[in-house]
């Protein structure tokens, strides 16, 4: 197993800064992207693990270099601790999200200015010229859900997509990961049609690695395999058991 008590560099300048709880079946994966004198946090507002996340950020860089916090949707598992993170990041830090997510993220009591991707051509150019592309993935699972593609490394920060339920967690996906991934998507994504449409939009990009917010990181041939599994997965509301009398 990887040494995971420290930040793990999963691609050049891209770090996993999460926390592993052996008793949990559901893990959150925050990431940090360092680009010269600037840094970007992804989905790092996991309140119960905040101290671990901050410590790992400090192991890599001065948090004042963090100029953007990307929030792929508005859920508490990635947003609840954003007001705490704002205190240690650059005073000019911006919260990057879709407008529809931003409306709700503000209710966590955030103070920073928003950078709405849907009002900025779905891209963000860093000081170095490096471009992050944002791909809308509406209703997978929230209306304002997005994912991020880093052109330089080919890493897709995929938020809930490609995530998994797993008590048998490892940083990189193991031989049984596809089943764990199905287990997460079946009750969580709105419908087969919506999921398929969003995966087809994502797979047009030259993705080399998938870094989901839950579950494990996918690389090599597992990237294409995961695209195929999710495009063909039957899921969503019609399969949720609801008693007839309700």
């Amino acid at each position, binding site marked *: 197993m990887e040494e995971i008590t420290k930040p793990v560099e999963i691609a050049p300048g891209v770090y996993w800064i999460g926390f592993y709880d052996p008793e949990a079946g*559901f893990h959150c994966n925050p990431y940090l992207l360092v680009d010269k004198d600037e840094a970007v946090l992804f989905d790092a507002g996991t309140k119960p693990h905040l101290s671990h996340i901050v410590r790992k950020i400090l192991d890599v860089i001065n948090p004042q270099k963090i100029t953007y916090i990307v929030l792929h949707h508005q859920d508490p598992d990635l947003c609840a601790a954003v007001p705490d993170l704002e205190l240690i990041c650059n005073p000019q830090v911006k919260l990057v999200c879709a407008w529809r997510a931003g409306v709700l993220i503000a209710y966590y009591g955030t103070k920073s200015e928003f950078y709405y991707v849907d009002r900025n051509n779905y891209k963000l150019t860093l000081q170095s010229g490096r471009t992050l592309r944002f791909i809308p993935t509406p209703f997978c699972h929230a209306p304002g859900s997005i994912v991020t593609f880093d052109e330089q490394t080919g890493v897709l920060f995929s938020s809930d997509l490609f995530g998994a*339920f797993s008590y048998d967690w490892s940083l990189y996906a193991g031989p*049984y*990961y596809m089943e*764990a991934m199905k287990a997460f998507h079946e009750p969580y994504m709105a419908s087969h049609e919506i999921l398929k449409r969003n995966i087809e939009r994502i797979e047009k990009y030259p993705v080399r690695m998938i870094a989901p917010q839950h579950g494990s990181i996918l690389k090599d041939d597992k990237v294409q395999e995961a695209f195929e599994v999710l495009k063909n997965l039957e899921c969503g509301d019609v399969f949720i058991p609801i008693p007839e009398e309700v």
Partner: protein
Amino acid sequence: MDAYRELIELLLKRELGILGRERTEKLIEGLDIKFDFDTQTLINYTGDGKALLEVLGHRIQQVGGEIALMGAKISLILRAWKLKLELPPIFAS
């Protein structure tokens, strides 16, 4: 083996992903189920398939709670519907 073969195999494959190999091996301890963990194939079982599913469901709930159970439920419901089989209560609601 009876008509529930496909459902038991599906459940064990799914729990390999969620619970991992070691915990899934323990799930079938004491039950007359032979499962090849390398090929993820159900080789054989004896007894009432529906009753075995019920026992497995309760063991899964005990080991992994609602997350582990929910992770298999939709697939089981869908497959059972296609096969026109009734699921035990733990998976049916």
